[in-house]
């Protein structure tokens, strides 16, 4: 019963390096989200997707790109990492249904950019 799985769990990058965070869910949810969590800022939405092949910007999209090539996967890319992107990243998925169900979250990825 995997739910939402994020890889990797930890990563250290040098400024200017690129990387991709992978989120996979096995619940056949349509909606997927990437958030970042910073002290005192709560969870801020980076990008989200409402289905395979779709993406949309959240409140803090700059410096990130995303892709949703398959319904179960949602990738978050950093093309040129900056120290300001040091954060804990959470992926979530949700089945909107008619009752706006809750989001299920992955375990998080702790990213440090030096």
């Amino acid at each position: 019963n995997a739910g939402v799985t994020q890889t990797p769990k930890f990563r250290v990058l040098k400024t200017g390096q690129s990387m991709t965070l992978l989120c996979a869910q096995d619940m056949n949810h349509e909606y997927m989200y990437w958030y970042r969590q910073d002290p005192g800022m709560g969870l801020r939405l980076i990008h989200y997707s409402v289905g395979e092949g779709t993406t949309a910007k959240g409140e803090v999209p700059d410096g990130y790109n995303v892709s949703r090539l398959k319904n179960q996967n949602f990738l978050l890319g950093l093309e040129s990492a900056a120290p300001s992107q040091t954060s804990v990243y959470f992926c979530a998925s949700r089945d909107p249904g008619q009752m706006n169900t809750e989001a299920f979250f992955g375990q998080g990825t702790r990213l440090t950019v030096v």
Partner: protein
Amino acid sequence: AQKVTQAQTEISVVEKEDVTLDCVYETRDTTYYLFWYKQPPSGELVFLIRRNSFDEQNEISGRYSWNFQKSTSSFNFTITASQVVDSAVYFCALNPSYNTDKLIFGTGTRLQVFP
């Protein structure tokens, strides 16, 4: 504006005390959904409750209770007889409209329960 405000950054209590975590939200829509999540020290986010805007009944689940008041746009969370295991960051979240995909979080309240 669509926004969630958790004005209490950190609360400290002694075990067995009751504690209330405040959540105030803003949305223009009449149909919306509210959530509470718990983030224990291990870091994962655990869903606690969902409430839609048409259901103003308070809810109780064991030591947890929620007070939803549309008149004040608040969805407060009370823990009765707190325990050390309740120590966590608690987030209130809003799905601000029936036809929106976004889930907006507050900045969280860190609760520390001391033995």
